[in-house]
């Protein structure tokens, strides 16, 4: 039998106040994130054009975008979506791989005790700086530098060095993609570098010391110690970068000439934006494309995650489980044998 005092103590639950304090976040989350998310799902089931915005069309938008089975308009939608997905993947790979390579290299160098680099903090700050600049300004900066006519800084420099015709950096298919990849890499490698450095510094120094004593060379240290122990951080970087990359909007949207946009650098997010803001509003198609993007992101994210699961750890867990089971069986059977 509990005393009434004990009962009273049990009934005071401080968790309640905690919930109240986190309530504002959830309210905002519901209004600005969750509701739009569901609304997008809803919109993707409705028609396009100003007249048909309120007509329920089921999965028509999805089948239009994915199969392209229908009139010229539907075929155009399908081709557009394929094109923008390709663009997005090319632009993401083109910026993620050099970015990861560069930041990994720099992170290893900056954390290596044997390399005595001077002015580490200075370099770290300078390399992180591009990330502080807004993407809009970065796009404007690159647009100005890489202007495609003979009046642009890079082109006039090249022409002074003896080139005959200006290079089209803005509208040409691969040149424009290259500039965008470069700008993205330049913007984000500092950020990735800082994250990887944090992870490397989290690795116990005794491991590096032991490797040193055992006479491992720096390549061995890198491949046998740094990289395997960096795996969780690399997964994190990869997933965040992939989500960011699939939703890449600002630089591809702004890096264009005047008011004409470039079909070769139009990403999914730009496509969604353009269709949403089109004058006969294509809410259905842009919402359907968003939903497809959502699932693609989810699937790719899961694949990344599964691929990077530590197989040794899983195997070890399995072994332990197995061993426990056997122990139990043994104990049982030994009982029975008594």
């Amino acid at each position, binding site marked *: 039998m509990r005393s009434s005092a004990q009962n009273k103590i049990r009934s*005071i639950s401080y968790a309640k*106040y905690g919930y*109240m*304090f986190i*309530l*504002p976040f959830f*309210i*905002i989350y519901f*209004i600005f994130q969750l509701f739009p998310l569901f609304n997008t799902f809803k919109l993707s089931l409705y028609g*396009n*054009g*100003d*007249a*048909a915005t309120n007509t329920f069309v089921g999965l028509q938008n999805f089948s239009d975008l994915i199969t392209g089975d229908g*009139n*010229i*308009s539907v*075929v*155009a*939608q399908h*081709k*557009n979506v394929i094109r923008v997905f390709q663009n997005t993947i090319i632009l993401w790979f083109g910026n993620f791989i050099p970015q990861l390579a560069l930041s990994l290299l720099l992170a290893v160098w900056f954390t290596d005790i044997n390399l005595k680099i001077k002015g580490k903090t200075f370099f770290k700050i300078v390399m992180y700086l591009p990330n502080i600049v807004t993407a809009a300004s970065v796009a404007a900066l690159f*647009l*100005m530098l890489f*202007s*495609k*006519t003979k*009046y*642009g800084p890079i082109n006039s420099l090249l022409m002074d060095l003896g080139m005959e015709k*200006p290079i*089209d950096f803005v*509208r040409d298919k691969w040149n424009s993609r290259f500039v965008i990849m470069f700008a993205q890499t330049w913007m984000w490698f500092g950020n990735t570098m800082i994250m990887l450095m944090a992870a490397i510094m989290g690795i116990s120094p005794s491991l590096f010391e032991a490797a040193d004593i055992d006479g491992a060379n720096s390549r061995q240290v890198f491949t046998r110690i740094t990289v395997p122990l960096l795996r969780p951080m690399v997964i994190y970087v990869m997933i965040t970068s992939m989500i960011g990359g699939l939703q890449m909007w600002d630089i591809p949207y702004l890096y264009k*000439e*005047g*008011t*004409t*946009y470039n079909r070769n650098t139009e990403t999914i997010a730009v496509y969604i934006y353009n*269709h949403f*803001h*089109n*004058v*006969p509003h*294509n809410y259905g*198609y842009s919402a359907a494309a968003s939903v497809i993007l959502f699932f693609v992101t989810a699937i790719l994210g899961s694949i990344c995650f599964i691929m990077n699961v530590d197989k040794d750890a899983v195997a070890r867990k399995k072994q332990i489980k197995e061993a426990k089971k056997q122990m139990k069986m043994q104990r049982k059977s030994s009982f029975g044998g008594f």
Partner: protein
Amino acid sequence: MKNLKKTLALVAALAMSATALYGCGEDSSSSSKKDSSSVADSSSKDASSSESESSSESKAAAEVPELKDDGDKLTILCWNADDSQPMVDLFCEKKGYKPDQIEIKNFKVQGGQAAEQYTAYLDEATNDADLMFLEADWCLQFINDDTQTAPVESLGFKEDDFSALYPYVLEIGKSTTTGALKGVSWQSAAGGYCYREDLAEKFLGVKSPEEMQAKVADWDKFEATAKELSDKTEGKTALSATLGGVWQVYSGSRPTAWVDEDNKLVVDDYCSDYAEYAKTLWTNNYVTHVAQWTDEWKPLGQSDDVMGYFVSTWGFGDTILGAAAGGEGGKTFGMWKCVTGPTNFYWGGTWFAPAARCDNKTMAKEFIEFFTTNEDTAEAYALSKGEYMSNKNVMEKIIKDKSYKGAPVLGGQNQFEVLNEVAQGIDMTGKITPYDSVIKTEFSNAVQEYAEGTYATAEEALEAFKANVAGKITELNWD
């Protein structure tokens, strides 16, 4: 004690969420504070604006809806105060209204984004709106929607009242579904070809604007002159700055609408003609390869690489030509002249339309009259702002009185004389569709790509154009 703690926590949580949400509600709360009385009035008496159901009813019922006249404030929707503020100032000054009787609801965005802001604002039935500023590119979106805008007739105008306005201005303000006149503009954005006087004399032997006009009177002559100029300067000087500028003008010469009665996109000889024409200009460097609105566009005016720009009424100041000449005291400032060019064209412009929920009928009518049909006040505004008005009597009077000396960048020429001629010659009858903006953009992109060599033939470019429009506009008839 326990209850007190609970209440305190609840209050704190509510206060936090309230402050967090404060920013979002700011716009509507401040406006509703200001015109709360008018909202109360309109919601109790005004049936037409209170609910969207009833406004859709009015769409079906009468063509000329009754507008209320009991609001206490004239609310004007606009996206910047560049025009609305000087207009309201002058209106109040001359008509004796107090500035607080007019509310300028300024969305502070670029013109292109205003349409969405308006839609969101008007979705709320209690938000007040009497007059709306609409941009040429998307004005039909609202003008064709009877739940958003009302015909000017409902303010008490007759169509004859606007007979002094340039015809094209009225043509654009008409609904393409019902034909009712719903928007009028106080300004006209007719444009002409502006060229460097010194270069023209040096290379083409042209001594007066008349001689220059003879050299660019149509598109064949324009090309021939471009060739002449290019030959004389060894390909250094282009006749027009950008291909986009040429397109802006060429689009004015389209003889038919882009979409026919069957709701089909019209791809005809006009399209292939222009594609070839553009390719010729581009590959021979008769235009520079710079694009409009890029950073290099305007500085070209100070080099000898470009002889001319296509400029509309609003472009004689810092927007285009003034800046291109380097501003006051710039290298080529005052060395430009303006002629009508190959085709009469207009470039943009702002229209005002009465909102369907307008509850200040009298004042809205006075406001529109003030800047369009009332010649004295329209003239006063033209002179105070340097605006090119849509009322041709006003403009002819200003030209005759010599009360306006012309843009300083033209060094003594009065561009109004030229533009008056252009504005009267623009014929938009039956050529307007709600899709024009998208179609024209896609067409000019496809032609640009053809000129750059992305497509081998004009047919391919036009196929791509058709597909791109199909990808943007689903509601056309695509077989």
